[in-house]
Each structure stands twice: as C-alpha cells, then as structure tokens.
C-alpha cells in the first residue's frame, strides 16, 4: 500500500489529524450510535422550512449542553406531537378560566378592576357552575356562557380544519372556507328568510317568562320545535350548500365533465361577487322602501356578526355535524397528504382522487355552513389558522389537522373572551381578526428570516 494512503509520509505528518465529524453527532462510543436513530437533526445542516422540530439541539463534541444532566434530548417527544399536547392542555385550561372569570372587566362602560369585584364575580360563577353541574333548576345564566364557549370551541375547530383541507385540496395558500362561496350563500339564505318569512327586527335576545315560552311552543315535538326556533339557521345552511353545489356544477359544466381547481376557485369568487351585488341591491331596495325592521336585520347579516345567545339545543345542533365531520377527517387525515401530488401520482399511490376530493369538499362545506349558520360569517379564522399551525407542526396532515382544530378553537375562544371582557359581547366575527392578526404577527416576526413560506 502506498505510503501516502497509510499516512506515513511527510505531508500527513505536517497536517493535524482530524476525525471526520458525523452529521448525526459524535460516534466515539457504542452508546452514541443510538444518536444515529434519533428523530432530531442539527439545525445548522438542514435547509428549508424549520418547523419547530429544530428546537432540540444535540450538543457538539466540544461543548457541553447545560441541560445534559437533566434531559437527554434523544428521548424527547416528537416536537409536533408535543405541540399538539400542549395546545390541547392550553385549550382546556383556557376554557376553564374563561368560564370562571367574570365578564365586563375592561369594558368601556365600567372599569371594574377592583379585586373585591373580581372575587365576587368569581364566587358567583363558582356557585352557578356548581348549580349547573349538579343539575339544579336555577344556575344564574352561566349555562349561556358555557354554551357560548363550547360553540366557540367547535366553530374554531371546524373552521380551522376546513381551511387547512381547502388549502391542501385546492393547492393554493390563499384558499379559505369562503373561497367556494359558503359565506355569500349563507348571507343570501338569511336574507331570503328575512325578506319572505320574517316580520320581526334584528335578532336580539329578549327575556320572556316560562309561561309565554311554553305557550308558544306547546304541543310540538322536538323536530317541530327545532324547525320553529332555528328557521333562520336552516335557511342559512340551505343557502350556503345550494350555492356551493351551484359553484361545483358550473365548474364541472364549464370544464365539460372535469373540474379544474382554478375553475373552481374562480367560479366561487365570481359567484361571491354576484351574490354580494344582489345583496347590495336588496339593501338599496329596502332602504328605498323604508322598512326599518327588515333593513336592520339585513344589515346585521351583511356585517357578519350575530349576537345570539346560545342554548343547549344550539350546542347539540352544532355538535352533531361538526363532531361527525371532524371524526371522519381525523380517521382519513393521512390520506389527504397524497392530494398534494399530481393526479396520476396520487392515483398510483392508491387513493381515488375524485372520491377523496369530493369527500373533502363536501365535509368541509358542511362544517363551514353549520358554523356560519349559527355564528355568522367568521372569515379570517379559516385562512389564518392553517398558516399558523403549519408554522408550528409542519404540513403533514397527520399533525396539521389536530393542530388547526386546537389552534382554531383557542383563537375563537380567546377572541370571544376578549369581546366579553372589553365590549358588550358584540359577536365573534370582528374581533377574531384582531386576535388572529396579532398572534400571527408575533409568530411571523419571531420566525423572520428562517424558512419563509417558500412552499407556496
């Protein structure tokens, strides 16, 4: 063997001996071989988007990590799973806090920041909740608050998941649940109901006695009762589903049997614009006629927020479709990863692209329509929450679906909480935007310069 290769020549004597550095960490002892199989990588050597699983670092040969004695980084939980666990814990804790704390603390009407008032309100809430849980008759109105937060939870989860799935299916980062025209269809449905079937004014909560209430709905079974009280929600639901079906039909007819995603998005936007035009015409007409009651109701629909008090019936009506939809999506979420590929590749990997796509669009439309029917048009959650969640856990739907659900639920609950504290509970549509915006700004600014959304 030549001397050069053995390292015995004069040249190699001058050069200092250097061991090759391993990408996965030092391999000086057999135990460290396990580092080859760890899930973490050095962030210095990776390129592209950093998703939070770069937060664990292996210490280099020379340095000693300050946490080496306490935590062995090789056995840490997958950071994505850890993020989901932390999120779920956070959502649960925040739910408890939001229900227990008294309302109207930072309201502009009354600045009640005194500790005594807080403790009073807290005690009252504890009493009411105890009464509620032990199924007593009078629980001081806390059940409305509990129902409100439960519906916020479900609405946020539904909107977040449908937003993530729309963005994945349409392969467009700017897609949201309102792309296919759900929101405009919902507005149109409500307005049709108000024009033809409704004689009252804007939806407000009125306190009526039990006798009045039961006399109105005496002798009805449960379905008639639901029909009688939730008429507007049913019209909204029908309107949004009909509009989305029309959009799909037009996209299919225009594509002569095949549906192109660009055609779908454009058809949805065109329909939304047309329906908004029709709605503005209706508003002009109502202003001309001077019908103030109906006009108020229409204005409240068009601005997009509903200040409705939720009862247990509303919770059940929202929970059934939303939980069913989320259950189906959670079972099939790994399959939706394949939709990111081309049609032929995805089909060669074993999914039926048309069937999966139809399922996704159908379930997401139902989820969004149900939420919009009960809570008004909440537009920003479905666009923002998937982007945020993707920065936390990455684009894999196995982790993204739970993350968007939890993050959306957290966002809407926080927004509702802030609305209850600062304003008179004006509905969650408008302040969701502010909360989501601030959270997103913080996340994006913290992540600046590191792997931006180049995947778009």
């Amino acid at each position: 063997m030549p001397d050069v290769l053995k390292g015995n020549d004069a040249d190699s004597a001058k050069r200092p001996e250097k061991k090759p550095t391993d990408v996965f960490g030092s391999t000086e002892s057999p135990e460290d071989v396990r580092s080859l199989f760890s899930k973490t990588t050095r962030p210095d050597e990776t390129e592209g988007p950093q998703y939070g699983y770069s937060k664990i670092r292996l210490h280099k040969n020379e340095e000693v990590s300050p946490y080496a004695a306490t935590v062995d980084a090789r056995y840490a939980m997958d950071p994505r799973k850890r993020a989901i666990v932390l999120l779920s814990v956070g959502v649960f804790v925040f739910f408890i806090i939001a229900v227990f704390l008294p309302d109207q603390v930072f309201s502009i009407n009354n600045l009640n920041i005194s500790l005594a008032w807080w403790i009073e309100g807290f005690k009252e809430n504890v009493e009411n909740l105890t009464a509620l849980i032990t199924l007593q008759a009078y629980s001081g109105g806390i059940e409305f608050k509990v129902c409100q937060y439960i519906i916020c939870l479900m609405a946020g989860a539904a909107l977040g998941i449908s937003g993530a799935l729309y963005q994945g299916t349409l392969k467009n980062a700017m897609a949201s649940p309102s792309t296919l025209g759900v929101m405009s269809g919902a507005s149109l449905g409500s307005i049709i109901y108000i024009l033809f079937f409704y004689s009252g004014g804007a939806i407000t909560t009125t306190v009526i006695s039990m006798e009045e209430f039961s006399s109105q709905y005496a002798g009805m079974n449960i379905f008639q009762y639901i029909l009688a009280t939730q008429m507007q929600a049913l019209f909204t639901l029908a309107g949004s589903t009909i509009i989305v079906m029309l959009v799909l039909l037009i996209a299919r007819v225009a594509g002569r049997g095949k549906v192109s995603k660009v055609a779908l998005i454009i058809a949805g936007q065109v329909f939304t614009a047309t329906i908004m035009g029709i709605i503005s015409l209706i508003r002009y007409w109502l202003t001309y006629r001077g019908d103030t009651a109906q006009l108020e109701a229409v204005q409240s629909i068009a601005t997009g927020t509903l200040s409705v008090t939720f009862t247990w019936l509303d919770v059940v009506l929202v929970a059934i479709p939303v939980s069913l939809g989320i259950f189906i999506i959670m079972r099939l979420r790994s399959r939706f990863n394949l939709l990111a590929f081309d049609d032929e590749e995805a089909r060669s990997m074993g999914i039926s692209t048309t069937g999966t796509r139809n399922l996704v669009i159908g379930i997401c439309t139902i989820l969004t329509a149900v939420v919009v029917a009960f809570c008004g048009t909440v537009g920003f959650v479905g666009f923002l929450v998937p982007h945020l969640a993707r920065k936390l856990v990455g684009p894999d739907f196995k982790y993204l679906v739970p993350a968007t659900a939890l993050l959306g639920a957290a966002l809407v609950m926080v927004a509702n909480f802030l609305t209850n504290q600062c304003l008179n509970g004006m509905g969650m549509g408008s302040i969701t935007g502010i909360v989501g915006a601030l959270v997103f700004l913080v996340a994006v600014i913290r992540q600046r310069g590191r792997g931006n959304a180049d995947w778009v």
Partner: protein
Amino acid sequence: MPIGSKENFDIGSDKPSNPVERDGSWRRGLRRMTDSDAFELSEDAIDFRTSSDLLQEERRALRKKLIILVAALVVLFFLSLSISVSEYEYYSPLEVLSCLGLRIQMFFQDVFTTATPLNVTQAMEIQPHYYEVMTRFGISLMTVICGVLLALAGTLYQNVFRNPIAAPTMLGVSSGINMGLIALVLLFQSSASYMTGYRYLFCYGGAILVLLVVMLSGRAVSGRRSFSVVDMLLVGSIISQLLGTVTTYIGYFYMDDTLWEVYYLISEQIKVNTEVISYISLFTVFVVGVVPIFLLRFSLNAMSFSDTDSKFLGVNANRLRFISLVCGSIMVIAAQIHCGMIAMVSLVVPHLSRFLFGAEFKKQFFGNILIGALLLLFCRNIAAMIPFLEDGLPIGTVVSFVTMPIFVWMLAIQQRSWE
C-alpha cells in the same frame, strides 16, 4: 401518371363529369391530384418563412387585435356620451357631436380670438344638453382611466403572486382609504363635506400610510433575506383586517348619525368626481404608477419564473416584484378612490388578455389596458341605462353580472384537468 395543374380541371365547363375525361388531360397523360399525393408531397415541403417573418406575422396579428379594441373603445366612448347622467334619456349622436364641437371651439378661442367668444351659458342656449354631455364626458373619461388602472394592477398582482386568483384587494390598502375618510369626518365634524381639497389628501394619505406600513412590516418579517412576497401578502391581509376592525370600532363609538351621513355623502361624492383635482391626482398616479410599468414591460415576465430561473436570466426579480407591488397598490388606491373597488375587473381582465394575447407581459400590456377600459365603460353604460330606484345600479354589481358569463365562457374553452 403525373399530376395536372388545377387550370386543367375546369368545373364550370360543360365537359363530361368523369374527371378523367373532363378535358384532354387524361389524353395528355395527366391525372388529378389526390389526397395521397398531397400527403406524399408534404413530406418534402420546406417552410421558407424565417423567424423575422414569423415575428412580423405575430406583430401584425397583435396590431390588428389592438386596433379592433381601440376602435371599439372609441365607439363605446362616443356612445356613452349620449346616455344622460341623471335622467334616463338618450341624446342623438348629432347633438353629442355639436356639443363636442362647441367645447373644442371654446378651447381654441383663447388661441384664435373669434368675434363672438363663447361661454358655457351661451353654449347651453345653443345646445340645451351641453352640460349633461360634458359631465358624461368627464365620467366616461374617469371610468376609462380607472378601468386601465384596475386591469393593470390585476395583471401585476397575478404575475407577482403567481396565483390566478390574486386580486389587488389582498394587500389591504383599501382599508387605509376608509381610515382616512373616518379621520377626516372625525376631525372636521360636520364641515367635512365642505373640505373638498382635504378629501383627497386624507384618502390618499391614509392609503399610502397603510402601504408603507405593509411594505416595512413585510421587509421586517422577511429579515435579512431577500424580500418575500408571500410574507408581505400575509402581513398585508393582517394589517388590513386590523385596520378595518379598529376603524369599525372607532366608528361605532365616536360617530353619531349626522357624522355617518356626512361620511356616506363624502364617499359618494368622491367617486366619479369630475373636478380638476381628481384629474390631477389621476395624472399623478399615471406618472408614478403606470409609466414605470410601461418602461419595464419587457422585463416583467421574469417575475413569473421561479427564483433560480430569474437569477439565470440576469434580471433582479425581487426588485421587479417590489416595483410591481408598489405601482399596483398605487393604481388600486387611485381606482378605489375615484371609482370604488371593483375586484372583478382585476380578476377577469388579466385572464382574458392572457387568452387573447399570450402570456408575455409585453404583448399583454396594451391589450390588458384596452380590455379593462372597455369592460368598465361597458358596465358603466349599462348601469346608467337601467332605471333602478333613484341612484341607478351600483357599478360593482353590474361588473359582477357582466363578468360572470365571460368567466364561464373562458373556463369552457380551456381544457383542464384538476391541475
């Protein structure tokens, strides 16, 4: 058997119908050319057209289309002058022509002093509808300019974001206009409707402030890396949402009904305002926004490629994207202030012009402008012709109704799979 030329086969003559016997060709030893002969000969065919010939053909076709569009625009503009502004009546073209003639005469009388100088009152005695026609002229001119701005902004945004559904509303500069208006009304209270000069200042100022904030935040968010467009988009949508909500809440708490009336009055008056100040602002917007795009139209294709490809081409794609976004936003601000935001024009017209003229920006530029102007003018005419209540149809509604069949037709022509 060799093939005879077509002069030998005279269809009109009273020769026997048997093609072989039709003339003396068969006797002369010639036969008729068949399809298989043509197929065989085509294999040896040489296309002697050079690349410059092909380019010339392309250019001629493009020019033909552009001339058709310009002619249509002129005709539509002239037709629009005969539609009245307030009453739903129509003036004859002769009347319109004589009004225009009077205007030209008044314009030139400063240069060539005539014996009887003309002013507006005398013109109105000669032509009773002079003022109406001139108002309509101003409105149509404004509409044409706004259509140009909207279409161009739409193309720029779609090229920058490489997304067929990118609309200029995404960057959220329209919320700045709202903010400016509310600031004006809150500052000057009831007398805000008399401040005609400050109106434009506040609106443009608010919108440009929002644009600056979005640009700076986008740059701050991108960090030391080069300017990322998607970051700016997300930040822009956030800021517009924030501003919109903040404006709504400020309006809810600090504005009462009289102030709301003033606000709606100003927002109505600002649209299609034919005073000199609006022309000045539009001219400024043209110079600041459209001229850079016109000068850069040969390079702007480079934005549509991926980042690595544009580096190969030697064009600074990021700088082009930045310039396009700034100019596009300025155009959208002006269009919104003077005409109201009509996102459909910005969405449809780039698709249409891409379909007609090809995907290159330099070919698409003029076609885009002309189609945008045509579309908006057409919708304005329709909106003026339909007697809907008092104020007529809002132009945004008409635009969405008109663009819907155009879109469906466009989608029907294209053969696409899901991709």
